[in-house]
Each structure stands twice: as C-alpha cells, then as structure tokens.
C-alpha cells in the first residue's frame, strides 16, 4: 500500500516544511511552535515505520528507491534508497528526534524558534545523509547538516560554546572538502572509463578503481569519516562539542551524527575501495583499539558526568570501527547494531545527565552522591542505561559488543584480547561513576530537595529504555534486516579485492555475488 508513496522524500521534506511553518509562527507562541515541531517529528517517525515493516530483507538491491533529475547539466540525480545498512540508521534518526524535542521542552528558553527550526533542519539533513544514493547529493546533505548543528552548539550551548562550535564546524568541514575533490575525481574517472558521467552511487559502485587510486580515494573519503566517527586521533572536537552542546544537541551528536562516519565507511570506503580497505585494516583496527582503551581511560578520570559519557563515545565508536574492519558477518552486524545501541544508550545517558543538570545546574560527580533514595525513578532509568552501555546481557549493548568481539576473534585474536579489556574498563568507569552519583550518603544539602522525574521526562526515557530491552532480548528483527546487505558487502569486498588486477575499470558487482558466490569468505 505504500508502494507509490515517496516515503524517503517525505522523511526529508516534512521536517523542512515543519521548519518553514515554525519560522512563520509568531515569536511569542513558543508553545505552539514546540507542539508543531513535536507533531512533525512524530509524524516523520510514523511515516518511517513502514520502512522497517515492509523492508524485504532477502533483497540486496536498494529499496524504496526514488530517482529524479536534479542537475541534468552535471548528471547529478536526486536518488534515494535504503538497504539493510542504512535502514536502521534512518529509523534511529526518526526515533530519537521527537524524544529530543520533548526532552528540551523547558530546556531552551532563548530564541526558541531558531532552536526548533535548527532541529528540524538537522533531522532532514541527517535522514538525507543516510538515504542519498548520489555522491553529490550525499555530500550536500553531509555538509548542510553541519549548519544547524553549528548553531545548536554555538547559540544554545554552554560556557565555551563558540570555541566548541567553531572547532566542530572546521574539523568536520576540513575533512569533507577533500572528499569533494575525491568525488569529483571519481566522477570524471568514471566518465573516462565508461563514457558517461554520473554521480549515481549505484552506477559508480560497478566501477573498480586501480589499486593506487583506491588508496588516495580511500584516504580522502576516510579522513572525513574518521573525523566524524571520531577515530583516535581525530577525536578532539568531540568532548568539546558534547560538553558545550545543550542536552538535545549532545543526544543528536552521539545518537546520530557520529554514526554518519561509520556509515560512510560502510557505504563508500568498503565497497568502492576494497583493496585499500583491506590494506588499511591493520592501521584502522589498531586506531580503533587505541580509541577503545584511550576513551575508556580518559573517561575514567573525568570529574564531569557529561564529559565522561562523551569520552565513552570515543570508546564505543572504537568498537564499531573494529567490527566493521573485521570484514566478517559477525563483526559487521555487531558494528551496525552497536551503532544503534550507542545511539540509544548513550542518548539515554545524555538525556539523564541533562535532567540532572536541569535540577542541580552542575555536572560534577563530586556534587552528587546518594541520589538514589531521592530520585528513584531517575535512578532506575540511569541504571538501565548504564548497564546497557557496559554491555550487560539482556540489554542491547551486549548483543553488539559480543558480535564485534566474536568477529574480531575470528580474524585476529590479539585485537580481540585488547578490545575485550575495553569492555572491562567500561564496566569500571560507568559503575564507578554510577556509584558515586547515586549511592553513598546524601551529604549535600542541595540534593535533598530534588524532585523526581516529571511525566514528560518519563515519556522521553520510556521509549529509549524499551528499545534497549527489546534489542537486548530479541535482536533478531534488527539483525535479520541487515543480514543480506552485510553479507553482500563482505562478499563484494573480498571478491572485488581479488579482481582488481584482472579488470581495471569496470568489474561486475551485483551479478558477481548473487549468482555465483565467490570462494573468499570471511574468517579464513
């Protein structure tokens, strides 16, 4: 029944229409504006549900495709579609957006209109990044989404907001400009080899680049993705941005924006530059492991809860990267599900930290202690999120970390051993933090009068927590939807990496792995 509905375009343009509506609302009507925004984001979420439920997980090809001419003079198209790799990312975005709006209901008091417009534009941009199947279109979404985020950090952020916002913007932009050059190069190279110019991802991925080109292109794409992830040593913008951003900004940053980096590796680097990907695997794996351990260690010594959660992101994203670069079914699926998990559990942690901050106007661990008795509901949610974040079985984090470690173990036992220590450190810093904040004696006078969560705040946390439990006990619907795409991706990488010298230029791709599965399989 949804066959004729351009769902993906709706997901992009509804938030934009919402932004327009909000910007036309009179400035005093903040309630109306908030309601409008919440309504629009909820509607977007509802519209995105058919993506999940009518997704055909046995098909490799992109689904819900839309294709229109955009710039015929340059042969750039407006081409959208989802596969098992982008599906959950889109849903994660549409799922978190209304919650974030609801969470910042009373949080933002100055220039509410600008804030809500930025949020809606951000949602449109993020969805666009995950569904764009045209290199130029992808780049446009990738960049344009920086602007609202920049404003969210810079206008509604904390003390050092300007520094954080400018650093965020320049870091990400610097990475992606080289990607633009690489995109142009691919465009003309494809034109030279095949005689037609196109930015269409589906066509371009048919092309196998010579090995030496792959290295440079991988680096140009990879730099912008690595900065976004953020991989050690490109992570320094992240703690600043996270800490200075308002709660909603941190949630979106952690929940969705960081995933754009790992998504970029999956979507572009692996299939387009398979040889370079394999070649850079040791480097990226080691950097990922450094990220895991370094992030955990730095998190451990943070006196500020928000900063602690921010550094834990560096560690968690290290797991995702490690999983991706195992090129095994388990590792990749683990990485993908971990992308969702991190969005949920770290998102929840940021939300809870924000709620604490709203009550106490401090985020220093030392200022808390013994809150458990005072705030039982908040403590419960906090505990679930903490446990999910450290990967307790039965909650979402376990599934992802387990799969990643399994995949890593199959390919490199040493990596797995080092990465596993990250899990232990995570347990240490998270539980230690939780203990210092929630347990012990309630010895600060200011903490005695704190009120527990309001209905609105509970409404924000319940869906996230429910999802964490759902994925924890029944991950199959989520893993199942990515299986075919991940399988295809791994086969593509191995198959094409082997072919690079026989056929510079065009190498069959889709047919290659559907009809006759090549021998190279993961784990050998």
């Amino acid at each position, binding site marked *: 029944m949804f066959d004729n509905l351009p769902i993906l375009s709706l997901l992009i343009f509804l938030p934009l229409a919402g932004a327009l509506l909000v910007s036309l609302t009179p400035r005093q009507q903040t309630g109306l504006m908030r309601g409008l925004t919440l309504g629009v984001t909820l509607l977007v979420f509802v519209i995105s549900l058919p993506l999940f439920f009518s997704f055909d997980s046995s098909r490799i090809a992109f689904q819900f495709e839309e294709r229109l*001419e*955009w*710039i*015929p*003079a*340059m042969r750039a198209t407006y081409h959208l579609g989802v596969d098992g790799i982008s599906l959950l990312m889109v849903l994660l975005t549409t799922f978190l957006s209304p919650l974030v709006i609801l969470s910042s209901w009373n949080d933002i008091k100055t*220039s509410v209109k*600008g804030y809500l417009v930025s949020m809606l534009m951000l949602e449109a941009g993020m969805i666009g990044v995950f569904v764009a199947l045209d290199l*130029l279109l992808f*780049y*446009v*979404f990738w*960049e*344009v989404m*920086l*602007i609202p985020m*920049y*404003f969210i950090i*810079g*206008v509604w952020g904390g003390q050092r*907001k*300007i520094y954080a*916002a*400018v650093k965020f*913007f*320049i870091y990400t*932009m*610097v990475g992606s*400009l*080289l990607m*633009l*050059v690489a995109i*142009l*190069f691919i*465009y*003309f190279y494809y034109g030279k080899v095949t005689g037609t110019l196109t930015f269409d991802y589906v066509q371009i991925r048919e092309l196998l680049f010579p090995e030496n080109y792959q290295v440079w292109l991988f680096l140009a794409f990879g730099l912008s993705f690595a900065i976004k992830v953020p991989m050690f040593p490109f992570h320094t913008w992240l703690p600043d941005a996270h800490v200075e951003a308002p709660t909603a900004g941190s949630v979106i940053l952690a929940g969705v924006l960081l995933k754009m980096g790992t998504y970029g590796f999956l979507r572009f680097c692996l299939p387009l530059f398979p040889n370079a990907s394999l070649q850079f695997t040791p480097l990226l794996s080691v950097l990922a492991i450094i990220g895991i351990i370094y992030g955990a260690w730095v998190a451990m010594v943070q006196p500020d809860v928000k900063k602690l959660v921010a550094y834990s992101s560096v560690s968690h994203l290290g797991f995702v990267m490690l999983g991706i670069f195992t090129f095994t079914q388990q590792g990749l699926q683990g990485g993908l599900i971990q992308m969702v998990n991190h969005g949920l559990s770290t998102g929840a942690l940021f939300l809870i930290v924000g709620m604490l901050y709203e009550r106490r106007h401090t985020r220093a661990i030392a200022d808390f202690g013994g809150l458990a008795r005072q705030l039982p509901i908040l403590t419960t949610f906090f505990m679930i999120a903490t446990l999910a974040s450290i990967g307790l079985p039965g909650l979402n984090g376990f599934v992802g970390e387990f799969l990643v470690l399994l995949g890593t173990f199959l390919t490199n036992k040493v990596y797995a051993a080092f990465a596993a220590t990250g899990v232990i450190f995570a347990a240490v810093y998270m539980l230690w933090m939780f203990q210092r904040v929630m347990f012990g004696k309630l010895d600060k006078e200011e903490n005695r009068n704190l009120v527990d969560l309001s209905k609105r705040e509970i409404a924000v946390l319940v869906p996230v927590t429910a999802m964490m439990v759902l994925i924890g006990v029944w991950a199959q619907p989520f893993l199942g939807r990515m299986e075919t795409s991940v399988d295809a991706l791994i086969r593509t990488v191995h198959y094409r990496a082997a072919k690079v010298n026989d056929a510079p230029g065009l190498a069959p791709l889709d047919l290659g792995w559907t009809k006759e599965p090549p021998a190279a399989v993961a784990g050998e």
Partner: protein
Amino acid sequence: MTDTLTLSQIAYHFAPTLTLVVVGLLVLILGMLFPRMYRETLAAVVLFGFGIAVFYAVQNWSESVRLFHGMIIVDKFSNGFACLFVIAAGLTLLLSINALENTSLLVSEFFALIIFATVGMLLMAASAHLLTLFLGLELLSVSLYILAGFRRNDKYSIEASFKYFLLGAFASGFLLYGIALIYGSVGSASLTALAEAVKARDLLDTPLLTAGLALMAVGFGFKIALAPFHAWAPDVYQGAPTPIAAFMATGSKAAAFAALLRVVLASGMMTQAVWQQIFWVLAVITMTVGNIVALRQDNIKRLLAYSSIAHAGYILVGVIANNELGSSAVLYYLLSYTFMNIGAFGVVAFLSKTEDELVNLNDYRGLAFRRPFAAVAMAIFMFSLAGIPITAGFMSKFYVFSAAVQSGFLWLVILGVINSMISLYYYLGVVVVMFMQKSETAGEELALERLPAVGLALIIAVFGTLQLGIAPARWMEAFQDLARSVM
C-alpha cells in the same frame, strides 16, 4: 554583413545598451528639471528602464550579430552578461536609496553614473574589438572613480576615489600598451582577426604578441584585483559608499572577467602551457593572499574586500580550465557572486542608515537578537561565500573545481579547497559575532525604521543565493549554452 543592416535593425540588436544610455540621460535631465524629486520615484524610473533592457536582451537572446563594422558583437554571451550586469546594477540601485538617505548626495547624478558604468560593462562584454573593450572599460572606470568618491565629506571616500583613479589609470595604460602591441603583431585590433592570425601562423610564439598579451593580463589583473595587483581593492571598497563597493566587487569584476574570457578564447592563450602556468600561479596567490589577510580584518567592508580578492582567484580557476565547463562555471560563479556579495554588502548598507557606516565587526555583536532578518540573511551570504551546500557559493565552487578536475588541474583544485577551509574561519567569525555573542551596546542604535528598498534587494539576493544553490539545473544549462556560443 554589418553594412546591410538598416539603422532600425542595428537599434534593435543594440537595444539593451541603447535603453540604458537613454535612461541614463533621462535621469540626468529629470534630476535637473525636478531637483526635489523623490529618490524612490527616480529609482522606479531607472528600474523600469532596466526592465526594458533585460527584456530586449532576452528578446534577441540567441542572435549573433556584428554591429558597427565588427566592433561590437551581440550574441548569447553578451546578452547573458547584459542581464547579469543589469541585475547587479538594479540591486546596487536598491541599496543606494538607503545609502543616500539623509545625505547631501546628488541623487540623479549618482544613479546616472551607475547606469553609465553599466553601459561600460555591456560594451566590454559585447566587444569584438580591443578598442571597444578599452572604451567600455574606461566608461566603467571613470564612472566608478567618481562614484567611489561620492561621499565628499568623508576622507576615506576621497582617498578611495583617488587611489582607484591613480591605479586604474595605470591599469588602463598597461591595457592600452598591450593593445598597441597586439595591433602591431596582428595588424588589427579585432578579436576575430586575432583569433584567425593565431590559428593561421601560431603567433603565440612571437615576442610582440606575447608581450601584448602579458600587458593586457596585467591590466585585467588590476581590474579584477588579482594578487599581486590587488592592493587598491581593500582601501577602495572600504572608502567607497557601500552600494558602490558592492557594485565594484560584482559588476565591474564580472565585466572584466567577460572581457578576459573573450580575449583568452580569441587568443587561445590557455591552450599554451606557459600561460596556464602563469595564471595557475596568479590564481593560487590571489586565493591565498585574499583569504589569509581576510582572517585578520575586523572591518567588515575590508573583510569583504579581501574575500572578494580570494573569490577572483577561484573564478580564475574556471578560466584556466579552458573548457566548456570552465567557461560556463565562470559565468555561473559570477552570477552567484553577484547575489551573495551584493547581499553581504547590502546587509552592511541596511544597517548603516546615516553616513556613519556600521562597519566594525563589533557593531554586529548579537545582531541576531536585534534584527533577526538581517542576521539570517547575512549568515546565508556568509555560508554561501564560504561555499557550504544548498547555497550558490557551493554550487559555483563545485562547478569551477569540477571544470578544473576535468582539465587535469587536480592540484589547483586541492589548493583551492585548502583555501576554502581557511576562508571558513573568517566567514564563520561573522556568524559567530551575530549569533553567538551578546551585544554589549544597547539595541538603540539599530532601531531603524523599515527600509523597503534595501529589504527588497536583500530578499532578491537571498532568493538568488538559495535558488542557484538548490536548483541550479536550468541556470547551468543556460550558461553552458552561453559558453558554447562564445567558444
């Protein structure tokens, strides 16, 4: 074939230019007869005239006719540029209504000079002969010398006018000398003759022609404000009335590029590695000098001046690419640049009602909270100048760079991209000041009444900036058509 045209046919083909000349004279007469006439009325008359000029340019869009014994060529290229110049002049006019308020400036003369400058631009884009080119350039320059110094009581304005005049005269000298040498080696100053002579005898190797072209390149370098010939630009832009600075940065730059393209394409300069290398270096120096010096500006007009220098470098990349994509990219860039740069100067004009202009970055502190419309518009222009997607600036940079990649200038593109990164910092700086800092001064100074004319100009500029950035398809096709007509 020129001689077979009747007078009325000539008038028809030459109509855009003729219309402007008539309107210019009309404005002078009206100003003389009715000295107390409202600025708005006069502006409406001029805008009406501009409308007619655009109408005629679109009417005989796809003609290709030589007029006046081959001195002038009316083709898609010149008609397209005519539209661009008129857009720039129209926006400038809308801005000037505000700038002229409460000043003792002579309105009708001011308007008439803008119109005559536009006529000069039209001649430059339509010239098929180096002397017409020179004539157009001088008409444009002399008008601008006067306009730059129009705020007679302001010493910076006088300085701007004087500086611009002296250096402009030098530049004209170079250009004229170059023309003379080219005439000497080809035996004619017609661009067609030049193209034919080059094709027939490979004249590019002769020292005389090379020297001529080099001298012309220097002359153009001055006019476009390429480094190292850029030194006048910041002072002149700073001192000139804001709308005029906008006009110089967009219209006159576009005209110089139009003429440069004609000369480059006729002489086949860019088919030679030496010339490509020279311009390669010029482009890189220009971008780098512009961007790096702009980093340290706290006067917004000077910042825009340096940014304008940097942009000339980017545009030059399209000329160097020397392919169809490159030429159309140059046109695309110039139109985008017209919208975003006039827009940016427009915001400055919008906020400076009196002769004391608000040009210090500190004056823009917290602007978003006092005048959100102006601040949002300025932010859009800044993002566009920085080349961030969904704005015209991104598309034009993308277009120029892709032309260069196509011709194999990968390193030039990478240097251009690095320059874009540098520029990001100061463009963001303006946004930071407007949106992220609280104003220390009270909001009183900026409590202006509504200014419909400038507001309209800003809306047009915002619309153009976004339109060219989001749905560039039709424009790109049109410009490719233009580029094809001249190549």
